[in-house]
């Protein structure tokens, strides 16, 4: 088996007394898309920065392409593509100039960059905007330009920190489609995200982190099957106390109350739905358990300070 593209072992980072990343280990195999999900302040971005050699870990190690980070940072970054959480596009340059200027940081010649320019702009669906400046672009276009910029050196591994945060559904879908294409080309992707549909759609494997620790790891569908009952019935508009404490309990394996909603997690929803008809005035939604349920089960429903 080929060695992992990225390997973090026992990564630890402290800011003052606060353990931001706590003994975190994971691997990213060639051609794989690994998603890192976790609430705000879980340590995702710090882990990301340690992978880039921008933050020095207090313990543990990062290896990329089987080379140590940050000791071999320059050699590693020659073959790495990065899209960070906030766009750092040059506002004074057009889309094409942004790519040209960025390519030079990799020591590429003008001709080499020029040869890749039009295909990258096309990939980013920005051919018609080649001469537009970032200020004239929509949020989705900016993110795609950031992605195109990260591809200028034809990297084999991409690190993407929340690539679709703040985008509308159309822009997100286009971004997903492009990332799928990159995976089909054999590139590996490490992705952090807040969107469970994004994680489920793109990632071969997921890493759930909270308070800097790994709390689950595996394929999305398997994780759901492992940790959750297959069906969820959400009930609104009734007395949550009566609903969650009453006779409905016998039809569910697990019950959660959040605000005015009662969540019933069950192996079979039919008996529960029938029993619900005895409660007039309540509304209910029956759906399969998803990654969001898993995420909330593992990390809790309460809002984090940073959120």
């Amino acid at each position, binding site marked *: 088996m080929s060695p992992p593209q990225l390997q973090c072992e026992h990564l630890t980072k402290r800011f003052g007394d606060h353990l931001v990343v706590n003994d975190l280990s994971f691997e990213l195999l060639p051609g794989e898309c690994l998603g890192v999900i976790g609430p705000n302040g879980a340590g995702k971005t710090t882990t990301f920065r340690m992978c880039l050699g921008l933050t020095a870990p207090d313990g543990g190690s990062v290896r990329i392409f089987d080379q140590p980070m940050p000791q071999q940072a320059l050699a590693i970054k020659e073959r790495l593509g990065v899209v960070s959480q906030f766009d*750092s*596009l040059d506002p*004074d340059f057009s889309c094409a100039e942004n790519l040209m200027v960025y390519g030079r940081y990799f*020591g590429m010649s003008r001709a080499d960059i020029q040869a890749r320019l039009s295909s990258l702009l096309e990939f980013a669906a920005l051919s018609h905007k080649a001469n537009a400046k970032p200020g004239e672009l929509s949020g989705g276009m900016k993110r795609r330009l950031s992605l195109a910029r990260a591809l200028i*050196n034809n990297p084999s591994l991409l690190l993407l920190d929340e690539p679709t945060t703040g985008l509308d559904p159309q822009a997100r879908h286009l971004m997903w489609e492009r990332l799928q294409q990159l995976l089909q080309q054999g590139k590996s992707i490490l992705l952090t995200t807040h969107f469970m549909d994004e994680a489920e759609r793109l990632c071969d494997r997921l890493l759930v982190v909270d308070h800097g620790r790994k709390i689950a790891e595996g394929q999305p569908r398997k994780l759901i099957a492992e940790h959750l009952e297959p069906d969820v019935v959400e009930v609104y508009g009734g007395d949550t106390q009566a609903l969650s404490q009453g006779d409905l309990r016998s039809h569910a394996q697990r019950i959660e109350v959040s605000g005015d909603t009662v969540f019933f997690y069950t192996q079979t929803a039919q008996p529960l739905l029938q029993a619900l008809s005895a409660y007039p005035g309540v509304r209910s939604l029956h759906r399969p358990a998803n990654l969001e349920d898993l995420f909330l089960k593992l990390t809790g429903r309460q809002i984090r300070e940073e959120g």
Partner: protein
Amino acid sequence: MMRLRFWPVFLRNFLVWKKLLIPSLIANIAEPLMWLVAFGYGMGALVGEVRLGEQQVPYIVFLASGSICMSAMNAATFEALYSAFSRMHVQKTWDGIMNAPVRLDDVLLAEMLWAAFKALFTVSAILLVMFGLGIAQSWKLLMAWPILLGVGVVFSCLALIFNALAKGYDFFTYYFTLFLTPMMFLSGVFFPLDTLPEAIRLLAQCLPLTHAVALIRPLFLDQWPNAPWLHMGVLVLYGGVAWQIALHLTRKRFKQ
């Protein structure tokens, strides 16, 4: 393969500047020239000549030779404070660059050299106008060129220290009000230092701008400076120490 990693970063700044050339020229060149004309000719008519050691010097030449150093200082300082801070903190340009195989040290070196280059460009244009106005016509002024580039380097290194410490643009007011403005008045740009009290004269001898003026002014009078190695030594010391501090503080800032 060895390559100069700071160079594409320097080139990036140059390309942006090329796009904004006209407003940049006005800010960097028109303004110092207005000062020169207004004060040089206006005040010069009142002051007449200034005694400099043994010789009498027309005030406009006295002022021109001092203010060219001040222009180098200001051009480098503005670039290494406001513009570098915009790129580092506001636009996150540095972060983007460091995702490519370019080190923070390379980025800082590029910013330092870029600010020095802007100082050189500014003073070149002003020198040209002074030459045209007949204020200075000595061929010795060719030596002013590398010296003023050095002055640009010194002040961009100093400014990068404050860039590394800044939380916002407001912070730079301290640097200007507490350091640059007093230095402007204490370095013999506008009036000779011998009229000042002893203690202030001693303080003035510790300021980098004083030594820049001491190197440049004789060239305007078709003379060679006295003790050039001493003045250059002071500038090199300021530049070298400031660069080390700026590098250390910038690395610390990016460790967070």
